[in-house]
């Protein structure tokens, strides 16, 4: 057995410590606090419902829950308001009227309002009143346009990026749909990919640079 001096931790100590910390603090859950947003950015109930639905359409339920089910919609709204994915960058001067109509006070695009209007327009009415197939078709068409050649700055890309962030950094998305290992404890440099292989959401280099 290896001699250890006080102050040195091993993996077992660490995991035990983390569990104790969680017990002491209660289960740490970082609630999304939309109520803290400035008044002009607080979403309506419909907007929250819409973003939940859109999140679920992007990442639906399969063997694991979908993005809407794990609270991604509210995360996206919060993240847009706080400038993640450069969501608060100023809208370009020559942006089309369909975008300029939805500017925030600071000159950035209010993606939430834009998306609401865009999807209602595509649905020819209330997007949320459409059946599932129609909603999926409308969003799929928007997605295809947003990723077409030359559509680099398309606002849907910002929203979708945050849907992915919201889902794969949630407990379900990060640790059930993908795998999560807080303390790998070792590095295996070359393993075969099998049918069971799943990506690790805790592969920080891949998350940052992949």
């Amino acid at each position: 057995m290896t001699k250890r001096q006080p102050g040195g931790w091993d993996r077992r100590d660490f995991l035990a410590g983390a569990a104790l910390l969680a017990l002491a603090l209660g289960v740490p859950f970082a609630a999304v606090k939309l109520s803290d947003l400035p008044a002009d950015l607080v979403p309506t109930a419909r907007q929250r419902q819409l973003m939940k639905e859109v999140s679920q359409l992007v990442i639906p339920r399969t063997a694991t829950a979908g993005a809407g089910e794990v609270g991604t919609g509210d995360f996206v709204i919060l993240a847009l308001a706080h400038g993640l994915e450069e969501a608060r960058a100023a809208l370009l001067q020559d942006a089309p009227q369909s975008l300029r109509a939805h500017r925030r006070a600071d000159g950035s695009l209010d993606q939430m309002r834009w998306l609401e209007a865009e999807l209602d327009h595509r649905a020819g009415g209330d997007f949320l009143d459409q059946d599932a197939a129609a909603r999926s078709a409308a969003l799929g068409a928007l997605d295809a346009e947003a990723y077409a050649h030359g559509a680099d700055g398309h606002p849907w890309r910002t929203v979708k990026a945050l849907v992915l962030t919201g889902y794969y950094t949630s407990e379900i998305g990060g640790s059930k749909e993908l795998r999560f290992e807080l303390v790998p404890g070792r590095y295996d440099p070359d393993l075969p990919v099998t049918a069971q292989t799943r990506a690790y959401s805790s592969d920080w280099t891949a998350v940052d640079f992949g």
Partner: protein
Amino acid sequence: MDFDAIVVGSGITGGWAAKELTEAGLKVLLIERGREIRHQQDYTTETKTPWDMPFRGEGDHELYAREYPVQMLNRHFNEYTQSHFVNDAESPYSTAPGTDFTWFRSYGLGGRSLTWGRQAYRWSDYDFRANARDGHGTDWPIRYADLASWYDHVEDFIGVSGAAEGLAQLPDGRFQPAMALNAVEQHVRQVMKDNWPERCLTIGRTANLTQEKDGRAKCQNRSICARGCSFGAYFSTQSSTLPAAQKTGRLTVVTDAVVEAIDYDPDNHRVTGVRYIDRKGGTRKAATARLVFLNAGAFNSVHVLLNSASEAMPNGLANSSGVLGTHIMDHANTLSAMALMPGFEGHTSFGNRPTGVIVARYRNMETMDGAGHSRGYSFQGGALQSTWTAGKREAGIGAAYKDKLQKPGMWRMVLVGFADCVPRASNRLTLDRRRSDANGLPLLNIDFAFGKEELAALAQAKADAAEMLTRAGGRVLMGFDRPGAGGTAIHEMGGARMGNDPATSVLNKWSQAHDAANLFVTDGAQMSSSACQNPSLTYMALTARACATAVSQLREGKL
């Protein structure tokens, strides 16, 4: 005298100075401008998952744009680590017109030892002879032989994992077992070896333990080091030098204390101590000592010296040469190439290795084969698989899209070029006395630009990187030859350069001020050239060497 020695700054070199001086029997005051950060107890986000964090680890970018506009550009800065970085709004600096410089800083106990990249390379005589060889800057007063045993000393204590390769330009150290290359990196290493025998890709030499050492556990392959590591598995002040210094019973640590100046006695030509601002109490205090070690970080050490101007030294302390603040450097770096690496779809890895790879310098050694430049460049990077974030760039919604993102993605290989930065008098630090910070101290002004040598080196690095990755079967997606802003390598150095001639340098070969023998500057400020590999190990070796000299001279009554 209150103390035998005062050490200003508790980062990588300050911690070393405190350790070496206390272990030699000196009573030492270690002064840190930032808050106390206790090992283990204060690493508050270390065990957090993304779903524990208000912004899932991404952080509040609205806040960052307002208060951390520079620090947020650091690749290690995120919601978990933000408290280990300085608040730019509270601690501003100024830049000269045309200067684009990102100054990454950690003001807190341990300084940037908590957030550093941990790459630990020896320099070689290609580096220590560089200025003499091409005439830029001033010749180093030391050579590799002067430092070799001190590199041994430092590596033995901090623990560096790496592979011995027998390269003259990247001397081997006293390594713990190397971390492993993944399948793609192993392949690229072999292709380089087969096609260019002088080019060596090796695993990064990193101050992460692969074997337990002195009560520190080995690396757990989390690669979240900058949050702080309760395993003590990477070298930091907290994990290593501070406990060693505290164990002597001769160390006093004062935090939240901003040193504004060092006092100088013109009659004896000696410094007498420091004056500092107690940030919590809002009062000014002073401490005296027989020795002062300045380890505030390269640019802040220069700030202290410039701000210590006196009647006897009107241009700044230890600045009779007039070169204080000049010849600052940072590695010119850019993404030289990124390539998709097909053929490895059946391979994956487990665990987060906390280091990449390095391709050691191979230009301008025995043969001058640099295209428009006379120095070296190296590459750092590695091979990685993409994951869910790749989905942000791809069309798709629905179950098939979700299923695709569940699998590890394509391998890609990245080579980031680091070019030697030529020392230039025009790249300099001054004090902006028109503006002051929250402590009432003048702002540091940075005037910096890369020159044609760095641009030429990065152009050649881009071409080489693309050629190597293509030869290895890669499909190059992008590559750049323009450097990022100054400071992005986080290897800012120089400003109080070492040299033989007191008329053209600030420090002698012992890191000792020509103008005040009991003043030592042993952080990055002392560097006379930049090499093209990471400098921290060399700072540590120079610090340990300077401490031995200081103690010896003190005992001989010379100080």
